[in-house]
Structures are given as C-alpha cells and as structure tokens.
C-alpha cells in the first residue's frame, strides 16, 4: 500500500467508527481543501453516500465563490447541508477590522460562538432544501454531540497534540492535560452526559498529502487555491480580512504539489498567511481551548 492508501484507510476507519458510535453526528465543511478531502473520504467510507450532515459556519466574510461552490456540490452529492452564522455580530459590526475587535476576538465572535450555538441548535440555522436548492430555517434543530473536523497535526502546535477522538466539555472547552488515552485503533467513543466529542480523521495527513490525494482522486477543489493570472493564490482559506494570498503561479494541482514537495513552499508554514495565529503567540491554543477548530 502506498502512503496515501494507508492514510485513506485510516481516515475511512475513523469516519465509519464515528458514524457507528454517534447518533447526533455532524461534519464541518469550511469549503477549504482539507474539509473537502474529508467530505470525499466520507463518500469513500459510505460507498458514494454521505449519511452525515455537513455544517458550514458562514462568517459573512467568506469569498463569494466559496458559497457558490458549496451549494453546487451540496446539490450534486446530495448533502444534508446546514449553515450557521452570527447574524447579530455581523449586523452590529462586532468584527475586525471595521468593528473595534481585535483578530482573536473576531474569530471568537464569528467562528467559535456561532459554531457552539449552531451545534447545540439554540441559534437559528438554515438547511438546504434539495427540491428548491434554497436554504430554509431548520425547524427542528437537534443538538450535535459528535463533530467531525478536518484538523491536521502538522498545521500548528496545539493540533499536533490532538487525539483522533477528543472529548470536550459542555462549554466546548478542551482540557489538554486530561485527554484520555487512545490505543491502537480503539478510540474514546463513550462520553459523559453534557460532553461531546471532536473527531479528527485527518490528523496524520500533511498539506502535501492532501494535495497528492486531491490529484489522485481528482477531487474538485475551489479555484481560489490556483493562480488565475495575477501571480497570486490562496494557500489556506479563511476570512478575507485575515487571510492573505501568497505569491505563486501554480495554476493546477500538479504545480501546487511541486511547490510543496521541493519548491518555494517546501519550508514555509501553511498558516503563515493567517494573521490570528501570530496574535496568539504563534499558535492557536487560546482559540482552540475555547472551541475553535
């Protein structure tokens, strides 16, 4: 088996284990390359189907073509698509840079908070109606207790310490020192009332593995990752105010792989374009302890 075969088999195993163990399970889809690979792996695991609802937290700052891309594949792949948003914060401009919030506070307002409340179902959320292709208010928002996330251990320090199945308390907080052990392919699939579980099927993948797999499987990926003629592209997708483009002329997956494998990005961290990391002392720990993915 090649390295990608091994990674794929392990991720599929984790996804199936999550699906078997948790009734109220949801998968986060940020439209970026990692969670799109995750979604593809779900289609692998369930033989073409995606029996797990997908959730997207729309910060209102996402680039418009991301929403078009999301809805196109939601329809094509028959996805149970749920969208949440902190509409109050957006309306009252409690944001960065036009509000008076710093980057980290903005992340909490537009990502961590709506994520928590959309998961629990106590804020209104939208679901896609496949007959009309439009979003409607979710009339019976269930609380999700298992959340599948596309985090990779090579992204930054605190993610390198994650488990595949990681319990979080009812405030979504992560007690790092008290993580239960995880042995062989046995995960913590039991949880005490009031807690929930984060599941990380992509922990062992690197950024390069992600692109190699996109190439091997021919996974449709949003074109923001490619240079569309101005010598710039996104390497990591986030909100417009905090995510910079990189100088690159990579126009397709192969050229991105070349850049990562031995070219100009071989030794430059992927999230170096994400400004909130720098504000957190070089890591995402503050945000992640508090529920950031």
């Amino acid at each position, binding site marked *: 088996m090649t390295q990608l075969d091994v990674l794929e088999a392990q991720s599929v195993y984790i996804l199936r284990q999550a699906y078997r163990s948790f009734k109220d399970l949801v998968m986060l889809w940020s439209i970026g390359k990692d969670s799109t690979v995750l979604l593809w792996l779900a289609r692998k695991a369930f*033989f073409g*189907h995606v029996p797990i609802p997908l959730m997207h937290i729309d910060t209102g700052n996402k680039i418009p073509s991301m929403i078009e891309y999301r809805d196109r594949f939601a329809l094509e792949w028959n996805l149970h698509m749920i969208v949440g948003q902190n509409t109050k914060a957006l309306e009252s401009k409690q944001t960065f840079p036009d509000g008076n919030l710093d980057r980290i506070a903005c992340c909490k307002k537009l990502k961590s908070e709506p994520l928590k409340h959309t998961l629990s179902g106590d804020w209104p959320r939208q679901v896609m109606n496949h007959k009309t292709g439009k979003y409607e208010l979710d009339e019976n928002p269930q609380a999700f207790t298992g959340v599948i996330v596309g985090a990779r251990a*090579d992204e930054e320090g605190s993610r*390198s310490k994650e488990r595949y199945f990681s319990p979080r308390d009812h405030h979504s907080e992560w007690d790092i020192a008290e*993580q*239960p052990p995880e042995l062989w392919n046995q995960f*913590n699939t*039991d949880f005490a009332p009031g807690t929930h579980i984060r599941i990380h099927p992509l922990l062992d993948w690197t950024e390069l593995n992600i692109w190699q797999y996109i190439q091997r499987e021919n996974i449709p990926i949003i074109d923001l990752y490619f240079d569309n003629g101005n010598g710039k592209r996104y390497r990591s997708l986030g909100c417009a105010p905090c995510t910079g483009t990189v100088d690159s002329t990579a126009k397709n997956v192969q050229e991105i792989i070349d850049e990562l494998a031995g070219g100009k990005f071989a030794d430059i961290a992927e999230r170096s374009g994400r400004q909130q990391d720098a504000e957190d002392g070089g890591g995402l720990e503050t945000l992640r302890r508090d529920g950031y993915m």
Partner: protein
Amino acid sequence: MNNTTEFENLSIEQSQEFSDRQKMNIVIIGHVDHGKSTLVGRLLADTNSLPQGKLEEVKARCAQNARPFEYAFLLDALKDEQAQGITIDSARCFFKSDKREYILIDAPGHIEFLKNMISGAARAEAAVLLIDAYEGVQENSRRHGYLLSMLGIKQIVVAVNKMDLVDHSQDVFNAVCAEYTDFLSQINVKAERFIPVSARDGDFIATPSKIMSWYDGPTILQSLDEFKKEPAPVDQPLRLPIQDIYKFTEEDDDRRIIAGNIETGTLNVGDEVVFYPSGKRSKVSTIEVFNAPSTNSAFAGQSTGFTMEKQIYIQPGEIVSRADEPAPKISTQLKTSLFWLGKEPLIFNKRYILKLATARVPVWLKSINTVLDASDLSTENNRSHIERHDVTECVLETVKPIAFDLSADIAQTGRFVLIDNYQIAGGGVILEAEENSNDLITAHVIQREKSWQRSRITPLKRAERCGQKSTLVVISGPAGTGKISVAQKLEEKLFEAGRHVYYLGLDNSLLGIDSDIDNENLRDEYIRRLGEISHLFTDAGMIMIATVSELEEYELSILKRLNHPGQSLVVGIDSETLTDSKLDLHLDSGSNTEQSATAIAKLLTERNYLPEYYL
C-alpha cells in the same frame, strides 16, 4: 452509481511517483528530562525540517523572556508545557529523510502523563528510547521499555543522551548499555543498538561526532532509516472485524454492504466466509469500492466493504474469517496481561466495557494472578485491586462470548482496551483462553442455590395445589411481530383455564425495578434482572410470561440459568437471532394471535407443564 465516471479522468501513473514514499511512525520515549523533546527539536533543526523562521522565532521569544534557548521549545507547543519545561502530551512532528517520511511522536516522560506516552507509543512502528548518561537508567526508562513490548513494538534503538555531561566517556556509555541490556533481557526484548548522543550539541543526531570517535555506528538519523517497514500481514488468516452494515435504500442503493478494516489476511470474491462468534456462514458476492477500479480481492490494511450471496443476520462487532483458514477463538474468559491507566483502580464486582477490534462487551474482573511494577519488575500475588500504572496478569470474564485470537498468534485481534467511566482506562493483550472453569453466572447460581432459604412448602406441593409446573415462558422476535399481544392472549387463556399465571410487561419492570439501570448497561442488566425475577416467580409456583425483542443465544442462556431450577419454554416469532434448535416453538407473525397463544398453551400441556389443557 457514478463510481466509474469520476475515476476515468485520473492518471494513476502520474500520482504514484509522488505518493509512493512510505511514512513511518516513530515514538521517542524515556524518563522525564532525559532529553526527548531536545532530540526531536535538534533532529528537525539539523535536517532543515523546520518551517522557515521557526527557529529564529523561538530564539527571539527566549531572548525576550530572558531564558536560555532550548531545542525542546520547538516541540513543547502548549503554553503549560513551555511554562513548566516539560512535555505534557505526545506531539506528532512531520519529518522527511532521504529515504522516507516520518511522523516522530514526542512522548512525555513524566509518570503523570503515562497515558499520553502510551497513546503516542501505540501508534508507533518503532521506538527511540532515551537514557540520560549522567542520571543513568531511571524508573520510567524501565517502565517505558516494558510497555513497548506490551504494545507490540519490536524495533527499539536506545540513545544514551547528555554524553557531554559525562565527558563523553565510553566507560559511562558502556555501563548504561550493560545495565539496560540486562533489564531488557529480563522482558525478552533486544534493542537494535545503543547510540551515544548529545542532543543539545547535535552529536550523533543527524551528523557524527568528532569528540566520540570511539563510536563508529550510525547516527540517530541513520538508524531511523534502518528501521524496517513491516509488510502488511496479508499471509495471516483473514480477520475482518465488522464495523458496520450499510444499506442506503433511501438513496436508491440496494446494496447491503458489510464494512470494515481488514486487519490480517486476504478476502476474495467467491470466498466462503464465517462470522464469529455467531458461526453463521455466507459467500462473498462482490467487493465494493468508490471511485476506484473494481476489484476481486481486498487485503490487510484496507478499509473495505463486501456484499454477500446469501443475506444473513449478522451484527457489527463480529469477525469475518474464511472457512478455509483457522478460525478465531471464542470464549467468555480471557487470561490477559493488562496495564491500568484509570484514575479509579480496577476492582472486582464492577462492570467495565471491553473493546476488542470492533466488538464491545460488558466485562468483569474475575481474578488477579499477579501485579507487576514495570519500573523494577517486582511482583505481588495477593492484590485485591489494580492501581493506576500497574501491570497485571489477570482473568477477565465477558458477559457474552467474543471472538478473538491469542496475542502471540494475531496481534491485531489479540489486544483490547477497557472502558471505565466513559474513557479508555486500560489496555492489554490476550495470553490464553481460559476454559473449564465456571463463569460468573454459574458460580452465582451455585452460591444462590446453596444459601437459598427453602420454604416448607416444597415445589411438589405447590405444583399439586396450583395444578401446574412453574414455568417461564419467554417470547422473542423482532419488533412489530405481535409478541405482546400473544403474551397477553396466552395469559388470559391460561387464567381462564384456572392457571396461576402472570405476564410481566416490559415497561412494568423498566419503570419500576429496573429504573436505576443506566443506559449503557440497560439491556444486559435488564436480562439479568429478568432472570432473577423469573426465578422468584417460578419458585412461587407461577407461570410467568415475558417478551424480549431479539433475544441472543447467550442472553437466553443467562435467563435459563438464572431461572434454574425453574423450567423455561422458549417461543420465537420470526426470530432471526435464535436458531430453531434453541427454540421450543417457532411461530410466524402471519398467524393470528389466538392461534399463536393456543399453540403455546398446547405445548405447555404436551410437555406436562400443565396437567391437561382444555378450552
């Protein structure tokens, strides 16, 4: 399905040249402060594996906080770790040599974080164990070495670190090697080699050292590349633990797919397969894939799925094996070697959950043979419980039979974890299947019979007075087959015929005597209590009727044994879980309630449980 269309666009050749390189997981272990994170940090720095600017950034931060720079700071990413200068949780570091890619797992050495060290080590294929040359072999040097062997990691390199603190002395190095080799030989482990290093100075990490010219072996980096990648165990007997069974009918997909990861062996279209512990058989019809070329075989390491020629009722947790290969063992009693990590000790008379491959069963600690302190190999023989960090040889008893292998035969299906208070609290390997000893239920019934306060009214007298032999009638079958109506009808008929009969409705016990059972243990504990209630009713001379949905064979066996010496009559309505040989009467849901109840009453008469039966 759209499987093939998406695959056609793909150039396999093109992608393979990039993804053919292998990835290996290596764990770095050893006593606290012996330099694990420093070694990994140094390795990353000396091989230019750090992201641009990372080294400078950490150096600058150290200067800012007026503390000397250490390579460990590159790894200890958490704020608490940096503040305390120790590693708390295992970190994955990605790193490439010319030969292959690595995930280096930097494990903590502090005893308090042993669970984190084990989590890291359990993912590894090989280990580098560090010993501080100045401090020598310490408690966790030994404990970690012992645990590696339990976790099944056979390739070990020992790095004798901080050689700079002992003047790079070959004598000190040799003494450490001798002491630790002696320890390892006691637990039947052999290190591939010992390497003198100074992680701080980079000696023999990625490059040789001029100072220690007396050592001419490989560096740490070279010895990583010397570790062998174990081939996938395709030649062993097939073990495919079922993760789940899928049928996505609502999406117009009629395939019923048995899904799971092949732990060992090979599965082919046309193979006759046996499911354990149920022992049911079928034949492989297709192997299913998505966005990949169709195939007739699947191999160890693959997460696969297959369909069957004959549809049979099987459950997740069973192990698929091939009829032409050795079968796994089946038992309820396992002699194991296990390590305990739980905050609460492992004790008798408490129910835990055992997870082995994809099976999950309630389990009790049955007996403790020995308890071992892995840090000095001292043993105790008279312990009543297992403390955190103890290693023990003990016997576990599962509530129902499970399929497994001995760890020495097939490691993947010979190991397990225990769940306590919702979390993995221990892990172990199976040494033997214990046979020929009484299980806990039988031992309980024997004890109960011995101490039972017998009434002066003998069972015979009661039978004569009531005109019946006391009996438990249990009706089983899937939901929606009318079990309850049949039970109620039967109760009514027998009552009208003058019998002493009681139908115990499910909710009547669930909301009353069973209301304290937590969800996790609901079914097994419900069955146990139903057995004890039946025993009281039959002891009182009554005929008791109960319904249970899809009673499993082992559950029936528990019910019958607990009801002993009372008699039992087992009725199945469309039962998929009980074979005919386990049933006294097989009914189908098509017949009407009146006919079904009459058939049961007739059988009671035929068996002389009722002296005569007339309507």
